[in-house]
């Protein structure tokens, strides 16, 4: 649905986005993840046709953003980081205006507006001035604005920023609810959000693509900790050696001893869950498996991927191939 090839965007003397390529399939919800200033907003602005790229090509639904902008714009709903609202307008008037702007035939507009107001639960404030709305309502009106023309693609720039926890959950549920009909790209720097909503993650840092992968894979890649005791049978070094021999384990990182209890951090190979293999190995060796837990959340994977330039450079290559 969305195809980004070799996208770069330079401002006067600053490279915001550097040679990024990725694609998003129809019906996917993709999380666009990166620290602040990583180039998320810039990339989204290029996809929506707000600004042209310095180099590279972006197509949406087969149409080139730069060559056939009108076709692309008809198919995209965009919620910028600050919802583009006119404070002096009433909610229903505003949505009617956007519907007209997006080219919906006049006869269909009232129905569409009522529909999206219901979908985004803003029907109860439809005659209120936007300036009087709370932040959560504004965000939802912003979302209603983005889907009023029933676009194929939704681009949401930090849709939950600045909301309170309850509103965040409501907004996430709303976005998840939209996923069936729309292809969605949403940017965020909040990891639980990606875990909660997205199927696929695109991580960028300092304008470079760090990784594209499914959320599942990224989680599996995560390091986990096991604790066991060997009932005096083997010492730490021996256990370590044994664990390293498990086929799907890429690295045994660290260990700590606490009396009889031995603890190890284990990293599996990308894309496979190593926990069953490790558990089997431990049990077959006759040791007591006490505990096994994911010690790293997606957060730590993310930090690991975005923190070091070296890691970024290494994994960028992998990402591009995908």
């Amino acid at each position, binding site marked *: 649905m969305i195809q980004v090839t070799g996208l770069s965007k330079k401002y006067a003397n600053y490279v915001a986005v550097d040679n990024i390529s990725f694609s998003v399939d129809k019906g996917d919800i993709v999380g666009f993840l990166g620290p602040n200033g990583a180039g998320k907003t810039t990339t989204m*602005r290029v996809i*929506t*046709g*707000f*600004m*042209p790229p310095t180099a590279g090509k972006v197509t949406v639904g087969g149409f080139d953003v730069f060559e056939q902008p*009108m076709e692309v*714009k*008809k198919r*995209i709903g*965009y919620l*910028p980081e*600050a*919802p*583009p*609202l*006119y*404070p*002096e*307008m009433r909610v229903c*008037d505003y949505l009617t*205006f*956007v519907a*007209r*702007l*997006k*080219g919906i035939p006049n006869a269909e507009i009232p129905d569409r507006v009522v529909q999206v107001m219901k979908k985004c639960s803003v029907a109860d404030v439809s005659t209120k001035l936007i300036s009087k709305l709370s932040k959560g309502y504004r965000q939802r009106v912003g979302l209603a*604005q983005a889907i009023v023309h029933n676009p194929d693609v939704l681009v949401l720039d930090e849709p939950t920023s600045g909301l309170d926890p309850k509103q965040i959950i409501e907004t996430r549920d709303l976005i998840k609810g939209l996923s069936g009909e729309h292809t969605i790209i949403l940017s965020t720097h909040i990891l639980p959000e990606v875990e909660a909503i997205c199927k696929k993650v695109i991580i960028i840092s300092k304008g470079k693509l760090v990784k594209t992968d499914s959320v599942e894979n990224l989680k599996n890649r995560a390091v986990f900790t096991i604790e066991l005791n060997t009932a005096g049978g083997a010492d730490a070094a021996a256990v370590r050696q044994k664990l390293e021999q498990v086929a799907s384990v890429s690295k045994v990182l660290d260990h700590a001893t606490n009396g009889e209890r031995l603890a190890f951090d284990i990293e599996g190979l990308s894309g496979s869950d190593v926990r069953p293999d490790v558990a089997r190995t431990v049990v077959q060796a006759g040791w007591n498996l006490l505990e096994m837990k994911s010690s790293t959340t997606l957060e730590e994977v993310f930090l690991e991927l975005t923190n070091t330039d070296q890691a970024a450079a290494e994994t960028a290559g992998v990402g591009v191939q995908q």
Partner: protein
Amino acid sequence: MRNVWTICRRELYSYFVSPVAWVLLALYAVLSGAFATAISSGFVQQTAMSQMRGASTPMSINEMVIAPLFGNIAVIGLLLIPLISMRLFAEEKRQGTIELLVTSPIHDLEIVVGKWLAALLMYSALLAVLAVDISFLFIYSTPDWKPVLTGYFGLLLEGGTLLAFGAFISTMTKNQIVAGAVGFALGLLLWILDWWTSLGDTPTIRVISYLSIVSHMESFSRGVIDSKDLIYYLSMIFLGLFLTTRSLESLRWRA
């Protein structure tokens, strides 16, 4: 065309839902009323004096009241029109709504023309206030109505020109005050250029006086539609809207 109207309608909505329109209308009513009163009182005094001297032909109310009134209104326009045009794009940029407009399936030119048209309609509402003042002249006298129509036409053209350039200025900043101040300064400068025309008849002065927005109004307020002046205004409007559109486009490259 539908897109132009969509943009135009929303813009008018904003003018009239905010205090902007009402404050401008009130200011305009006071200013144009003050000018109309001063000019017609002056006329009444002069007529009385000429009658006492026993002049045979009555003085023309068109030449003595309506033409100077339009001339003064044109100058007020120079100063008030920036207040209409300053918000056009600056406000959209500040609110972030420009992102909505620019990412919608609508051409930049449609956005520009829609906004300009709304501003022009807003200005027409101001001119409608002026009609109240002029209607008094029709109640108490019998002026020729044709110069009034051409005068109005001239004021609209002058307004359209200033609004087109005001819109252009407004695309260059996020700050309405800056847009207003620059527009205001431009208006004053154009007015001062008009003074220069009385300084002589060198080629430079002729060029300057041709550029002066106010001096092209004169023929209209005397009841003449001079093609030279008409072409001047239409080409200036075209230039202003063209610059606005290019500037809006370039926002994307600079943003």
